[in-house]
């Protein structure tokens, strides 16, 4: 995992973290984010920003997650940026990622790109609520904002 160079150029390294959707495990996920950014030679501000952004995204999703459900967080580590996609199965049918909060504004400031995702539950799925997620992208350093 530490040897990025063995990877074909242009292909991202992929790291997936899957945890119970509980706030108690978010410190673990943000530590992974921080570690990946450090290994990818992000500058110190960008490492700090990604750690906070991932924390913010996960905290937002854990809030709407169905009881006893899982939080999945996928990191795609490219040469100059890391793309993060996190999602949960929401508890209620009308659940959505709230984008009118202070936390969301902070997330927009931290990440170079961020979007809220939502997909209705398919018929016959083992969960009733929609899948809600957040995708964000962070550049290694000195990004044009």
């Amino acid at each position: 995992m530490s040897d990025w160079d063995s990877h074909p150029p242009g292909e991202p390294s992929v790291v997936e973290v899957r945890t119970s959707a509980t706030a108690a495990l978010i410190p673990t996920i943000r530590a992974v984010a921080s570690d990946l950014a450090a290994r990818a030679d992000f500058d110190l501000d960008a490492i700090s920003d990604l750690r906070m952004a991932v924390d913010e995204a996960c905290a937002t999703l854990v809030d709407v997650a169905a009881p006893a459900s899982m939080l999945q967080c996928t990191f795609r580590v490219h040469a100059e940026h890391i793309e993060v996609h996190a999602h949960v199965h929401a508890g209620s049918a009308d659940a959505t990622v709230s984008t009118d909060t202070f936390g969301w504004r902070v997330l927009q400031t931290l990440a170079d790109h961020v979007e809220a995702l939502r997909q209705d539950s398919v018929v016959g799925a083992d969960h009733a609520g929609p899948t809600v997620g957040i995708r964000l992208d962070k550049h290694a350093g000195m990004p044009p904002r």
Partner: protein
Amino acid sequence: MLDPTKPRPSPGPGELGVTFEQPDARHALLVVDGEIDTLTAGSLERALTELLEDTSEVLVIDLSAVTFLASSGLAVLIRAAHQAGERRLRLVSTARAVRRPMEITGSDQLFDLYPDRAAALSPEE
């Protein structure tokens, strides 16, 4: 009512160390230790409420041992700054984990920032 807080040697995940000190007649000091996120923002909020009830002239919050500050914690600090009104809160930290979130949100303007506790407790400049 708040429990009197005890100093804790090293807070684990989900725990926040909060300690009150009264260095002299003019200053009240709150020392915070650990990670401020959704798990611990409530502890910080309770501690700040208690600090704001203090009638000391100068309120100092030492965040030197804080290693993470999420928006939930930032929101609590910002509310405290508004509640403090004319008594501008003094924050102590040089850590990127604290300075960076404050800078990018512009909330550093709401506080007087100091590099160390001695500077924050020094007589008026």
